[in-house]
């Protein structure tokens, strides 16, 4: 009897869930929610249904011994599968996109770091060279003609030159300026001003000053963001001189007067 009543309850609640889900989907369609959100609303309706089915479920029979152990193992497998599947069904960020970007950022730093190591090696080689010369001199004084050769060390390659504005645009992408600033109609979430006409409003020197010291300028209407120090003051540490030059050169070319760009105000 109890089982029959529960089956009826399951059916009833599933139907109610489908009806509510259907209503939500139609409402979402009418209010211009994309299909993915419509599916999501339907899933929530069915989740609600499942919850209400569980609320009225008859008590579970007690499990003991091997049965309890088996039920536990199945439960763990189901939970693990559910969480992995749930995480896998969501949109996945492609690491390859980021890896390319990171490689570009780190390449110059790595090269400089290797340059640093090379300098250290050269210094060590010089010490060894002097020691070898001393030994050679000592051997000569003993009448031997031994020679000690020290391998020459070449310096790191100079960075390749290129189009500075294109490099500046690349810096815009690499430093993820688009996260806060809207440009060419995309990016930005009101954290920072639109920059389409910034080249007409700020000199290259002022742009450089703002990047290196964000507190030096404030965009009109962005008082709160300015006070909270929303623009990170990390670029003076993170960017090399040529990267800053390139970014400034790129920003200086942004002179689209048709896009309203907040006026910069000199602060200190």
């Amino acid at each position, binding site marked *: 009897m109890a089982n029959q009543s529960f089956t009826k309850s399951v059916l009833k609640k599933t139907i109610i869930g489908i009806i509510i889900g259907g209503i939500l989907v139609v409402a979402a369609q009418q209010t211009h929610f994309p299909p993915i959100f419509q599916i999501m609303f339907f899933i929530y309706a069915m989740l609600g249904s499942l*919850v209400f089915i569980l609320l009225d479920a008859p008590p579970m029979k007690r499990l003991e011994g091997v049965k309890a152990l088996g039920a536990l193992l199945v439960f763990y497998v189901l939970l693990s599968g559910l969480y*992995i599947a749930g995480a896998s069904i969501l*949109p996945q960020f*492609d690491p390859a996109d980021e890896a390319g970007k990171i490689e570009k950022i780190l390449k110059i730093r790595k090269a400089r770091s290797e340059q640093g190591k090379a300098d250290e090696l050269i210094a060590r080689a010089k010490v060894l060279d002097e020691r070898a010369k001393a030994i050679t001199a000592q051997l000569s004084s003993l009448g031997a003609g031994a020679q000690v050769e020290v391998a020459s060390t070449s310096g790191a390659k100079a960075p390749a030159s290129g189009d500075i504005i294109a490099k500046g645009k690349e810096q815009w992408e690499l430093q*993820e300026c688009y996260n806060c600033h809207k440009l060419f109609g995309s990016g930005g979430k009101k954290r920072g001003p639109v920059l389409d006409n910034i080249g007409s409003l700020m000199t290259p020197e002022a742009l450089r000053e703002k990047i290196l010291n964000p507190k030096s300028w404030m965009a009109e209407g962005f008082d709160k963001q300015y006070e909270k120090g929303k623009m990170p003051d990390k670029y003076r540490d993170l960017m090399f001189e040529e990267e800053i030059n390139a970014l400034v050169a790129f920003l200086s070319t942004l002179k689209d007067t048709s896009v309203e760009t907040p006026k910069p105000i000199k602060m200190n």
Partner: protein
Amino acid sequence: MVLGLLIGGAALAYGQEVPAPQVDFPYTGNRTAVWVVANLHILFAAFILGAPIFAVVAEWLGYKNNDPKYDRLAKEVIKVTVILYSMTALTGGLFLFVLLGTYPDFSTWLIQHFFLVFAVIYPLLFILETIILYTYFYSWDSMKGRLKGRHIALGILLNIVGTVTLFVIDGPTAFMNTPAKAAEGVSLVEFVSNAGLWDKMANYSWMPLNLHRLVGNVTFGGFIAGLIAAYMFMRSKTDEERSYYDWMGFVGNMIGVGALLLLPFMGYLLAYELCDYDASICPYMMADQLSMFFEMQGAMIGLIFLASNYYIWLSLKRIEGVDQIRMSGYVALSVLFMPAIMGMAWKMFPPPEWQSLIFLAATVLVPVMLGKIPGLKNFTVSAFTMIKIGFLMIVVADAIWMTPHGFVATQGLATHEVELPEWAQELALMPAKNAAAFTLVFLTIVNYIMYNRAIKRGTIIWGKIDFASQFVLIFLAFSAIWTMGLMGTVRSLTRKYFHVYNLVPDFTPEAFTPTLSYSAWWITGVTIVFYAVVSFAILVTLKPASSKVEAH
């Protein structure tokens, strides 16, 4: 000549240096290997720090109320803790070896920056904690009666040392996320080079991380106590034992959920400080590479709240006289409108502006006051109706929590086909998320208040709870551990391609954000390994025995 050759040979040997072989972890790669071992270590560490907090509170309650059940509960939890203590040390050592082997330069750099912490303070604290823990456990029976107060004091001391240990080791961890913020005009490199130990320890995210982990550990301790109770309930042969472990599950769940209610706010505080440190971390977490990790977090939090309230539901069903329990209908109405009201309030007055507190107080207090006015107070709903409304709103609140701005892995790929329509964009913003979190917390508190009334007015029959409740307890522990793994992954990934954010870049090819799916596999793997070890420890440590304790 011989002397010359000797000197020459010595010079050659001096000039040669046998380089250490490059370590490459098979299959997982170096970064995942460090991640897995660190995650495992943190889970064990969280257990040995969280369980004693739980235990000493239980011991104190037993002493205060003269109830031996609490004392037994506390002792059983500590017994498992003692077994797992060695696993914490073992995984800690393993973590150190793996880290040193795979990232030798960075490990050395970090150890040198925090040398006093790693070489002196932390080991001393760990030794002290070990001594106190074992003394606390082995003196349990000898310090009964009039010495009980001293034994509880020893437990409190254990927790103080444990908490200090946590705070100390959080310093370098938080430093990796938010190294000291440089003063104006001084570069970060220069600042850190000259900074003292305290400057590096007391960084932006240190205290938020401490609080988040401390509360998380209490939650963890409560849910693990629930897990112990569930296993033992299943193994129990007598009604008396079942009665005791049913009660233990109830206490574990109550403490776990009680601390869980604070966790969203602690997490918010930590995220707030990270964003305040560097505004670019925020979009990275919420809108870009990690946005779907937070989507998954929303799903997990929703499931945990659903499960904890379902446990209350199952508990209520075995209380005789629960049909008589009623709740003000205004509270039910308040719950129904809470996401909308609080969403609007936080949109107008975003935290930390105080004006939103007026709305908050009104939403909470007005229904209670209306319920006391003669003529209006008759508008009531039954306990079961209230809980059903609560479940409906948990689903609604979680739907709001999980509604993203766009169903894409990163906003750079967003198109109109996957984005919220313009008019509904508020659903994806923080005021809506805060309102959803607050609704979940408020609902759970209301359910517990009702449950408490039911226990006081009705008769609770311990041991007669629906068997499904034991799976709910196991579900809660598993899901809480999984969520800890997920959020730990998120915290580590916010360093992006740096070992120490903005300071020490990670030049290895693995320095990228892994996919959520890949992360989920490893988080699940770590959770299962941890669960297997804890389950084994519970099964070998505790045996169901006939108890003289009268559960009532």
